[in-house]
């Protein structure tokens, strides 16, 4: 029974993530309208399944008459792109720091631990907001800022797991066979901790997507007119009392995507037997 629920959750997470990724990739071909095209004649049209909605706009239109469904689909691109790029960036930084600290130990490890502690003491949202506000908001700035801030979990997990494999027999065998240090790190240590890192990747991706939405919501994330889900919620905020669906739609999209990624991560953790408290 329990086993089935777990597999079901993993499958559901997988379907959600792959589905949204496909939608994001195919956005130009499946959207019925141009997401940037304004049509002031049909502002705030309700979705077609609600009273007063026309068949032309499935999820209605926003305050500038842009097709909400098309913007939602293009918003998936932003979220997926940011999630993926941020984990690449933070994964590289965190894994490098963690593996180096865990492998060499001693003074090197102390330095790595110090860097991690410093990072932990920084208030995340505040610093991200400050950087984006001063450098100017663009997709690249948001990705870099989050990428440079979200690596600490990678570092912590990579460090702990590297310490565990460092003293195992196959590492000793590699030393004895005369392998070089970079070879051992890349070919012996890394492949044996990578399943832990995959789980962290899903967690951080979900976090990055939520943070991007929060930044965009505060007006300091992805700049308009790009259709980020967080930005859509922010723009819809003034109208939410009269037409609640304008904030419900992007919020639910955000919720489903993050839920999918989390389910995928949880499922993979059980499957790959990674540490539970990663």
């Amino acid at each position, binding site marked *: 029974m329990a086993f089935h629920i777990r597999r079901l959750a993993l499958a559901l997470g997988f379907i959600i993530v792959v589905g949204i990724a496909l939608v994001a990739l195919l956005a130009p071909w499946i959207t019925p309208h141009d997401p940037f095209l304004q049509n002031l004649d049909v502002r705030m049209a309700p979705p077609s399944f609600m009273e007063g909605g026309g068949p032309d706009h499935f999820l209605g239109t926003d305050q500038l008459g842009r097709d909400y469904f098309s913007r939602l689909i293009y918003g998936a691109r932003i979220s997926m792109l940011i999630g993926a790029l941020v984990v690449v960036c933070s994964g590289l930084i965190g894994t490098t720091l963690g593996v180096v600290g865990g492998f060499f130990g001693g003074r090197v490890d102390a330095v790595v631990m110090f860097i991690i502690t410093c990072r932990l003491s920084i*208030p995340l949202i505040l610093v991200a907001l400050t950087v984006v506000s001063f450098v100017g908001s663009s997709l690249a700035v948001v990705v870099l800022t989050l990428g440079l801030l979200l690596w600490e979990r990678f570092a912590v997990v990579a460090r702990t797991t590297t310490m565990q494999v460092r003293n195992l027999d196959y590492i000793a065998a590699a030393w004895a066979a005369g392998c070089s240090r970079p070879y051992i790190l890349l070919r012996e240590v890394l492949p044996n901790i990578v399943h832990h890192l995959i789980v962290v990747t899903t967690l951080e991706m979900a976090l990055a997507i939520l943070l991007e939405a929060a930044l965009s919501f*505060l007006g300091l994330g992805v700049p308009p007119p790009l259709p980020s889900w967080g930005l859509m919620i922010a723009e819809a905020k003034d109208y*939410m009392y009269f037409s609640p669906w304008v904030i419900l739609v992007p919020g639910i999209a955000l919720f489903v995507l993050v839920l999918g990624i989390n389910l995928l991560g949880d499922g993979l953790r059980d499957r790959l037997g990674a540490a539970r408290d990663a």
Partner: protein
Amino acid sequence: MLTVLTISFALTRLSGDVAVSMAGPQATQQDVDTIRKAYGLDRPLTVQFVTWVAGVATGDLGRSYLYHAPVGELIRSRLPVTLTLGLTGLVIALALALPLGILAAMNEGRVLDRGIMMIAVLGQAMPSFWLGLVLVIWLGVKWQLLPISGVETWDGYVLPGFVLAFSAVPALMRLTRGGMVDALASDYVRTARAKGLTRFSVVMKHALRNAAMPVVAVAAVQLGFMLGGSIVIESVFALNGVGYLAWESISKNDFPVVQAVVLFLATIYIALTLLADMFNAVLDPRLRIS
């Protein structure tokens, strides 16, 4: 500590020429120079940094460009709102997470456990600012149950506190459940049961005390996150706290305030981590020896 100082300082100097943005678009070069002199911005960065650090060491956080008031005073006047909000959030989070986690652990593997863990997974995926808006629409406007902005009365804290708590509940709940499952399976719990103690007393006195340690540590860290995250919630509910002050200063380039708030939050975070260690030492005598 010094690193935090450096980071908060460096962050605000990324902003380009503050004097220009302060003087406004119509200012002449002369105006800009006057402002630069008045605030000491014409001196080299290292000198500015040392001046600031020396000021912080003596409790002087500098003056706000926007309010023309000492930064320390600004933060102090906004602090009660943010602190109350953070503590309300923590209390609500614990009030939800502990019973649910214990309940899940006592029914490990059964339907109730699955249901509670499902809530945790769903809760983790919820964007808190969005939850805030949705609650404002339904509880605040449609049903008129709770005030949606301002904190003139105590119930103004209920909605924002709940939303803030929501982000911390899943993590705390999982920890409580995990700790309780281990504790309930241990020898001392079996001994306690064998002594004929009631189920309630076994769970509350013996198991919970041991499961509580990681929860305390994480709760302290979460309180730090909540104070930092209040910047989003305060803007949703239009609360005039430190978070809102920070947001306002960031968008208006008022960098003495920004660097002070970053420093302030980082210090609180470090203090909370220390406090959690101390609290754990009280809970667990074994830790006190080392």
